[in-house]
């Protein structure tokens, strides 16, 4: 079974702190994704990566950055956390998907609920 793990289930940080959210997948997937989930807004894509050291902006990248130094690990960074970044953050991975119409199943991690005070 594909396993996607996230470093923390719950995290509480203060405004202005630098926050790292880590995600690891164990199935040699090429693609990795970071979403945030807010009530009534569904899942919104922050950043994704289709290869090591490659990254592309999603729909709401402002205030975030990412790092992918190894294939299995994808980090989301909040350079200076703000209260409007309080949310549930979900990481996902998929085998491949650079061709339209062949997007593979995404496998999600359990999520990190981040609270910024």
């Amino acid at each position, binding site marked *: 079974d594909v396993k996607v793990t996230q470093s923390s289930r719950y995290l509480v940080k203060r405004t202005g702190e630098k926050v790292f959210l880590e995600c690891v997948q164990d199935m040699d997937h090429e693609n990795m994704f970071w979403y945030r989930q807010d009530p009534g807004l*569904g*899942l919104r*894509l922050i950043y994704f990566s289709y290869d090591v050291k490659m990254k592309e902006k999603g729909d709401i990248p402002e205030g975030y950055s990412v790092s992918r130094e190894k294939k299995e690990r994808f980090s989301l960074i909040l350079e200076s956390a703000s209260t409007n970044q309080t949310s549930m953050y979900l990481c996902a991975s998929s085998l491949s998907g650079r061709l339209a*119409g062949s*997007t593979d*199943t995404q496998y*999600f991690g359990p999520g990190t609920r981040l609270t910024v005070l």
Partner: protein
Amino acid sequence: QQPVQSPQAVILREGEDAVINCSSSKALYSVHWYRQKHGEAPVFLMILLKGGEQKGHDKISASFNEKKQQSSLYLTASQLSYSGTYFCGTEGRAQKLVFGQGTRLTINP
């Protein structure tokens, strides 16, 4: 642009049927359906590819009308285990999934 799901929420009795709709303003290559139970990660249900196909397993099926840029998820004779929030994810030219806002399904005994 996020696809629009309807209804936003639905409450059923066990054994009743439900339909969840997903509509996009963009041309679509595929539609994915996921279910998320409370406190858990979203779990993949099925993918429908361009070609207007219909898929299903057990009592959950879905259709994809690419001309109308719409997909529908059908839950027949619902079971308590079907409760959760259902998301459609649409793939357009950007080759990434854009998820709808979700439909919360509650099944009561």
